[in-house]
């Protein structure tokens, strides 16, 4: 992984003084998830008076958190949860927004601000939609204003959704926790009451079987490790040529290695047959495998274009068809069905010079995910995508220094993310507590300026 030595330098005493004096970016050491660390290290202030507020307060108290309605001016705050679910006009936002603003100077490092509101698309009332869109805008701006590794994100509720639904709790917990360290300025929509809270939050995927493609290295290996840590049994898939690293990853996560070219016509069937043979079930498929073949479109040849499309999107479409035909990839009982999580990219959202093929394939993933949601819902399942921004991997380590340094700082957290940050978001989307979220593309980019 690329070394972000600047962030390390800034986080030393001397380094902090020097870089501050020079007006340089101040990347913070992000609070990241470990199973034994507290969910959030300090008081959580709940703002906004509504019925929902009581329900959320009980939920937070149930997790053993220090929940406050008010807090003294000297106390440090670890998180602010601001409820706007009843906002009917933009003018009604004022009280809660200003209360949030009053707390910003009291935020601890790596604090969280979470706004909760109803989906703007679900109302035809201009004033209501204006109010809800207003919350979106203020959340994004807030994310830009955050310092010291803090983030601001929103939870967007379906119009009719009971706020007590498990997936609301799941989203809230994800955003509060270190799992969302590199997620900022983003919105998690919760559309259904589906979902279940795990018996053990340290092992939300216990008993489940997950396939990770492209698992031999980088983000794929991190996904395999994270899913394993969360209790899943992992089938690590990669091309035969990557078999040596793949075996190392599979052995590390006590899983099985499946050497497979995902562009094979029967790749989906091969995965299903492996899962059936070795585990007798399949719960989670993470389409992580992808390639880049960068070239300006003027110089693009068919080999570069076609291979990127074939690996990054066509293979996923084909594998999904096989998965959705299979009885193995189904949990008829209960409300928690199979999960597909695909890797998109911020390039797929904003486009990128020299990456017309890659951006097309990744935008294709975003389209596929939103269009497949209904099919998955029929199985109580979900399909989502994660769009990483600048992540410190072997691949980005090969970028020229200046380009890498600029790309790294071009976000609200002033640093690149780690493969684990992407993996944490995927593990969350694959968890039973995220069963209410589908068709979404969630960015893990530290609120990258590109495509914001």
């Amino acid at each position, binding site marked *: 992984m690329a070394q972000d030595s600047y962030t390390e330098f800034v986080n030393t005493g001397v380094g902090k003084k020097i870089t501050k004096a020079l007006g340089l970016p101040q990347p913070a050491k992000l609070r990241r998830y470990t199973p034994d660390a507290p969910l959030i290290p300090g008081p959580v202030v709940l703002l906004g008076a509504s019925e929902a507020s009581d329900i959320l307060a009980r939920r937070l108290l149930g997790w053993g958190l220090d929940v406050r309605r008010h807090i003294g001016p000297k106390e440090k705050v670890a998180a602010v949860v601001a409820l706007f679910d009843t906002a009917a006009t933009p003018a009604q936002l004022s009280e809660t927004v200003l209360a949030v603003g009053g707390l910003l100077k009291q935020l601890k490092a790596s604090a969280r601000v979470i706004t909760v509101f109803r989906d703007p698309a679900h109302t035809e009332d201009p004033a209501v939609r204006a109010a809800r869109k207003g919350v979106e805008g203020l959340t994004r701006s807030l994310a830009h204003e955050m310092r010291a590794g803090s983030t601001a994100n929103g939870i967007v509720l379906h119009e009719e959704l009971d706020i007590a639904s498990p997936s609301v709790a799941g989203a809230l917990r994800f955003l509060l926790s270190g799992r969302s360290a590199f997620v900022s300025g983003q919105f998690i929509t919760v559309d259904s009451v589906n979902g279940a809270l795990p018996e053990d939050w340290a092992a939300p995927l216990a008993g489940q079987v997950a396939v990770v493609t492209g698992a031999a290295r980088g983000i794929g290996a991190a996904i395999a490790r994270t899913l394993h840590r969360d209790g899943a049994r992992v089938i690590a898939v990669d091309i035969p040529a990557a078999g*040596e690293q793949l*075996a190392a990853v*599979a052995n590390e996560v*006590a*899983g*099985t*290695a*499946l050497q497979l070219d995902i562009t094979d016509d029967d790749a989906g069937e091969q995965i299903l047959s492996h899962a059936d043979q*070795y585990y007798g079930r399949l719960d989670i498929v993470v389409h992580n495998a992808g390639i880049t073949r960068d070239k300006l479109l003027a110089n693009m040849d068919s080999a570069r274009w076609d291979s990127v499309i074939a690996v990054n999107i066509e293979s996923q479409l084909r594998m999904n068809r096989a998965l959705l035909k299979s009885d193995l990839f189904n949990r008829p009982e209960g409300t928690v069905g199979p999960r597909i999580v695909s890797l998109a990219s911020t390039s797929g959202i904003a486009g990128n010079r020299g990456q017309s093929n890659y951006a097309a394939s990744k935008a294709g993933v975003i389209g596929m995910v939103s269009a497949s949601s209904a099919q998955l819902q029929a199985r109580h399942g979900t399909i989502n995508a994660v769009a990483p921004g600048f992540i410190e991997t072997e691949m980005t380590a090969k970028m020229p220094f200046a380009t890498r340094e600029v790309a790294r700082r071009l976000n609200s957290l002033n640093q690149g993310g780690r493969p684990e940050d992407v993996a944490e978001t995927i593990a969350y989307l694959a968890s039973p507590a995220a069963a209410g979220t589908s068709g979404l593309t969630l960015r893990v980019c530290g609120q990258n300026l590109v495509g914001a």
Partner: protein
Amino acid sequence: MAETPRDAVIIGGNRIPFARAHGAYAKSSNQDMLTSALNGLVARYGLQGEQLGAVAGGAVLKHSKNFNLVRESALGTPLDPKTPAYDVQMACATGTEAIGSLANKIKLGQIDSAIGGGVDSISDAPIVVSDQLRGILMEATRAKTAGQRLKALAKIRPAHLAPQAPGTGEPRTGLSMGEHMAVTANKWGITREEQDELAVASHRNLAAAYESGFFNDLISPFKGLSADNNMRADSSVDKLAKLSPVFGKDLGESATMTAANSTPLTDGASAVLLGSEEWADAHDLPKLANFVDYEQGAVDFVDGAEGLLMAPTYAAARMLKRNNLTFEDFEYFEIHEAFASTVLAQMKAWESEDFCRDVLGLDKPLGSIDRSKLNVNGSSLAAGHPFAATGGRIVATLAKLLYGKPGKRGFISVCAAGGQGITAIIEGR
């Protein structure tokens, strides 16, 4: 054969690609390679933390420091360290012997699961000091006083210091395996053309098997190599015809053995997972084929009474008789291509009425082998032959070929140095 209490099931295999000597694996030791092959197998079948009945295998060329090669390799994997492991040695038949004897233990109920395999490195072969120097050094070690030690060490002469690489020659004849085979090939009238054809078929079959993805779950890459680098998909009889003989040159015009129809020196490792039916089921593992039976053979080659690499012809006759089978009962034949002429001479012997009657004592010849059933996914001429690793390659390849063909049989023949060899029967499930 006598009724066995239970089947020994071949679950699967893994090998690293075979690399021509002093190439891709030049800096890898036997232990590095075997550990990698085992790690790939553990990863493929999810055996992390598993306590197996045994891991057995070996290397033909072995450093003295690798006295516990297989155990040391197994300790380098995520297998439960309580899994016993031991070394086996039967020259080029080492891997096959390890697998066969483990299968027997499973059949007997002594163990429920096992890994058998082998490894060899030409690139990291043990270089030893001369016998004289070793004698002097040992004498110095035994010396009780500094004076005695000095006196011993004073005997060292510059000539003693020349390192000695292990020879590929047979100790009792001083002849290389190729020279031995040249005599046998000449005796059986094996032509240059049929040898070259066999070599080309080996390369083409292996390349086609790679192309079809056959090896996707049989090989995991090592040191950046993902396929056997001796393979030449574009090999042709015309190209091979241009090469000069390298063995049997004293036969003059009758010399037929070239570098292309002989296996190159190679580095590599392989491993095969075996288990009882119950063990495989309990661990949700596939059951590719049964390891039915195997037979060792040895011939008196020292004074040329029989060819060095002809032992499998004898073993086959006994094994087939014991199992009441003929060649017609087999779907596939895996005959290790030490040299193209080895395969051809063995087949000629089985076809020969005189040989089968007078030497093997059979009523009629064992008969001919349909070439379309022979080494269908390539063999050692193309893949290479890291001595002890060949058995694992063959058993895993054949087991996969027979998977899904219940009751169909495969025949294995592996010749070995010292005039030995093994034949084996496996049966699809």
